[in-house]
């Protein structure tokens, strides 16, 4: 799959931005079980993330973003990612331990594609992660066979 601007999207690649090592390990373990075909890549910090992505030839199909991180937090990283049209086709899933309606609204307004609550129980954790990834795989899979729909820029809305 190639974006309008010619940058390649690698749907098999998932970038996990998560500072908690236990959570990162749980995500790794869950993905290995439910989506062994995916290649997750992990980073613990949000700073430098944008530059790192822009320097790449192939962009990850999906970014799994924690909200509470030292340095720039998830909200800041999200705003940064969505400020760049080159990254429009990267799906951003916020994966966090809060269900606060205000937090959800803020993330959706800032251009997150999904907001998924991170459960404590591992089996449930795996289930919700699978649910979100399945949805976006099906969605992006369908989109790649259809003419591209221009994405609404949050800055223009």
């Amino acid at each position, binding site marked *: 799959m190639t974006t309008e601007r010619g940058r390649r999207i690698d749907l098999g690649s998932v970038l996990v931005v998560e500072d908690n090592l236990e959570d990162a390990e749980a995500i790794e373990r869950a993905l290995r079980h439910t989506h062994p075909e995916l290649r997750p890549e992990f980073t613990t910090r949000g700073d430098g993330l944008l530059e790192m992505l822009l320097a790449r030839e192939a962009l990850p199909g999906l970014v799994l973003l924690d909200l509470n991180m030292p340095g720039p937090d998830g909200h800041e990283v999200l705003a940064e990612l969505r400020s760049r049209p080159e990254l429009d086709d990267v799906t951003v899933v916020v994966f966090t331990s809060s269900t606060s309606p205000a937090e*959800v609204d803020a993330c959706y307004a800032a251009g997150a594609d999904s907001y998924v609550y991170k*459960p404590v129980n591992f089996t449930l954790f795996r289930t919700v992660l699978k*649910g979100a990834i399945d949805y976006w795989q099906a969605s992006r899979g369908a989109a790649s066979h259809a003419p591209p729909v221009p994405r609404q820029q949050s800055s223009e809305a």
Partner: protein
Amino acid sequence: MTTANSRIDGIDASWPARLHSLWLAAQDVENVEEMARHVYAAMLAEDDVLAVTGSRWEGDRLRYLRVATTARSTTTTTTGAGTAAGRPVPPPEPGRAAARPLVHHHDLDAGTEGFAPEGRALAEAGAHFALESRFRLGENDWASYSVGLAERPRDAAVLTAMTARLVQLSEVLVASNRRIVEAREHERRLIEDAFLAEASLQMDASLDVQETLSRVARLAVPAVAEGCAVHLFADLGGLAPVASAHVAADVQPWLADLARDDPWFADLVDRAVRSGECVVLSGEELDGAPFGPHTDGPGQPVNAVSVSPLRARGKALGTLTFIYHRGEDAVAGTRLLDNLARRAALAIDTTTAYEQRRRHVEQLQRHLLPNALPVWPSADLYAAYEVADDSLEVGGDFYDAVVDRDGRLAVVIGDVCGRGAEAAALTGLARHTLRTLLEDGVLPELALQRLNTILLDQGTTRFVTALVAVLTPDGGGACLARVAAAGHPSPLVRRKDGLVEEVRVTGLFLGVLPDTDLQPTSLRLEAGDSLVMFTDGLTEARSASGVFFEDHLPEAVRDCVVEEPETAAGLVARMSAFRATGSDDTAVLVAHVKGTAG
């Protein structure tokens, strides 16, 4: 014959080992497809076997067909149309869904009727003869496992041995399937229980209905489904959406619009409320729906919708709807849906009841205190009231002020012991009794004595403390005050120069003994002096080191009681800042003599 025997012996030698390894694999595999590959390989390793097939059926409907041949090591899987009409399946054994496999022999050259679509697939692989094992996996769920041979074995013993092996392999598949189904069911229960536990936690996180439901809806996507909407009966009677969530940000507004405006959706939630049971729609049942497989809403096609009614204490509260983009077979079970709906309904009921009760308490509390204090020419009045904690009980402190028929000002402060409905009722009784008597010009001690009699007549077990002061202007700017107190903390006077004195006034509290032994006292309040009355919540507040605020009260009164609107509130605020323990309600009433000749 010898050759045939030795050949059978040779297979027998390796067969138990192969069968054993299959049984081991059956304990480990995570899905039937993986197990099928092992079993197909076991049979393809046999001499003369050209191809094997596996088909899975739901009643007469073919769910899938898998074919593996010696030429191709991979299996090909097809799903789709096919009918098993007239193909007998072993009936379930008593008390079990599964049954012993039955083996059929097919001469493929004579046609493949009653053996479609496997017969054709095996014939295409060059087979002329097939052994088919049919076995039941569940009530309406059965499978067929077949092997295709170049020709019918001429040796009956070989045929018998192959038949036995087919039965053995089928039994491995049955056992493996049962274990996988049980493991999945177990995992599903674990997930459901974990989800319900987390949902309960979310429901406890807030006492606001809207917020609680938004949190539950968010938790449920994508744990239960991709979309969730909650409707509740509005005050005017109809169902109105209060929360919605979707896993995709760009689909969520669409779902919220549908939940609010779509007539089909409205009919569906009404139907669930009327039936009182969970309604699940999928496939063609979604014809006419705004999100059926054939409509062009945003996001993925919707494969199923479930609506659970929310009921608590026999009352319909609303509905909980889930929108599934995932496959129909992934629709949450009724155990989860009913359980979640029950918990959500209880949380709504509790939260609503709490909000209602808090409103009632606030209303009641307001009625127990005067709306406004009277304006009186010779003195200004200041009052403050602090509820100790966010308790849902009405407190018993009260105060009042009334100008009597001769133009004197009567001020009242009191405290009914305890909290709650009875205390509130007595508070109302005490305040209005005193007010009525004082309006008529009854002396403070007589008014208190009359209240005592009324309380004794009520037969209440609670006692009441109260203080009444009647201020009479002396015509020169000062006031004469007559003060009577029944078991109530003595008031303080703050003189204009800052000196603070206690007004010693004694008497027994009310509602216990006929004789209250009230000893009224009189004093003169000059212009600029203040009479400071309060309940024991003020004096009994304690600091962390155990000191009572009473010890600091003269100083606090000297500093705080100055001629400004916040006088009484300032005193209460100072006490609040001091208090570490003790959480009684507190009322403060201050009468400040202005010095206007009246």
